[in-house]
């Protein structure tokens, strides 16, 4: 199950009517959305969405039936057990010795970000970025971990030479085990135009 499917399952399974609907599905050989809705006194759209989602996830079998009226769907329980198996491996960084540590970066000119230093003033505690224009302008604050704050404290100024992430981490005395969170904040700040990377020739 991927993250998206798990999110759908989680959101439906957490509804207070979910158990009652599964009980109906277990009791009846097959049931339509209107039958289930009338039985539980719920809105038909609510039940229909639930049954459709469970059917898409493969827990129910959906059968189109034709009586004298227009066609509709009847649902049957396919599994007696639902297990959620979520794979987090794709979310991990590729490797600790990522080649991106050679990426040479510095603060972008006129980045417009506000850096707040920590109480002991030896690292940055948060970065505030303004997003949007005019009345639509909103403030986005990113609170930093201590290694991220130490790293940004040593980030080269806009008029300074670019430096590699590896070198900045060395200057900032940040342990290589924190590399993934450093790369994460660098990526975020590149996206918000606060950090620029040296153009490869």
């Amino acid at each position, binding site marked *: 199950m991927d993250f998206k499917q798990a999110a759908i399952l989680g959101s439906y399974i957490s509804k207070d009517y979910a158990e009652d609907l599964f009980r109906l599905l277990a009791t009846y050989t097959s049931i339509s959305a209107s039958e289930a809705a009338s039985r539980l006194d719920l809105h038909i759209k609510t039940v229909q969405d639930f049954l459709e989602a469970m059917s898409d996830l493969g827990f129910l079998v959906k059968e189109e039936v034709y009586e004298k009226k227009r066609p509709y769907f009847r649902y049957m329980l396919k599994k007696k057990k639902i297990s959620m198996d979520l794979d987090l491996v794709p979310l991990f960084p590729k490797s600790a010795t990522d080649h991106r540590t050679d990426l040479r970066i510095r*603060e972008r*000119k*006129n*980045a417009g970000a*506000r*850096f707040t*230093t920590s109480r*002991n*003033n*030896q690292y*940055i505690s948060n970065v505030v970025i303004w997003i949007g224009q005019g009345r639509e302008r909103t403030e986005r604050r990113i609170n930093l971990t201590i290694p991220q704050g130490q790293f*940004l*404290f*040593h*980030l*080269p*100024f*806009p*008029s*300074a030479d670019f430096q590699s992430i590896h070198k900045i981490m060395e*200057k900032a005395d940040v342990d290589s085990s924190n590399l993934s969170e450093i790369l994460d904040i660098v990526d975020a700040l590149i996206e918000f135009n606060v950090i620029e990377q040296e153009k490869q020739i």
Partner: protein
Amino acid sequence: MYYPNKLKSNNKFHPIIPALMMVTLFAFAAIFIDISAGLFVMFICFALFAVFSFTLFLRTHNSSFLVGGLMQLLFAFYFATLPEGFIPFPEKKMAWFLYFCGIVIGIWMIILVVVRRKNKFKGRELFELVANATELASDGFTDRPRPAGKTTYTKDELLGFAEYIRRNLIALPYMEEDRVVLVPIRMGDEYHFNFSPESFRHGRTWIAFDFQGNITVSMSKRDYLAYKEELSFDQLCSNLGKLFIDFFELFKQGDGIRIIDRLNSLKQNPITE
């Protein structure tokens, strides 16, 4: 050594504004009331200037403000004891003695101000020295502080250095829990500092020495824009940190006077700049 000025010129009128205000008030009082009222205004003005100087002495520990305050107090006394003043002196000898004291202190003051530059706030010299070896680079400003290095010193040495820097009007120290922050002060800034020392430091350039030996520099936009040209902001901050590390080393070796010589060698105007 010749240093071309890299800072924009100061407002040259700031030293005479209080004097101009005083003369205007005197003229109004003398014309619309009488000469005694005019002399009373002069007495009040000089007494206030003396209070200002004594406060500045207490805040900076610079003896020239004590001398200046004494001189202003004698001037106040002079205007009060004139025949038309509100406490005229019956004894002429006594009056002459006081006037003589005033003249002596006045000469002493001129020597302190013009020759020895004792009451010169040296922030401008600092910024000139820092800019001397800095390249041009546009749009380099950031409000982020910059780590300027690490050096070794004891807490007592740091406190001694901060006191030396304060007494010689190079920067004003602010003691924090785990560090000392030095805020350079320029001529004309003394009014803000004297009236409100705590608010003075906000939005200004600072150099911080923590008790672990870390040195951090932050240059304000106001000071960065005071340069005629767009200089590399990174180099300015780095040079400011290095300059203070050099000054600290000189101080530790007992060569503090070299710091003053280096700053005075720029020969900035002792009154206006």
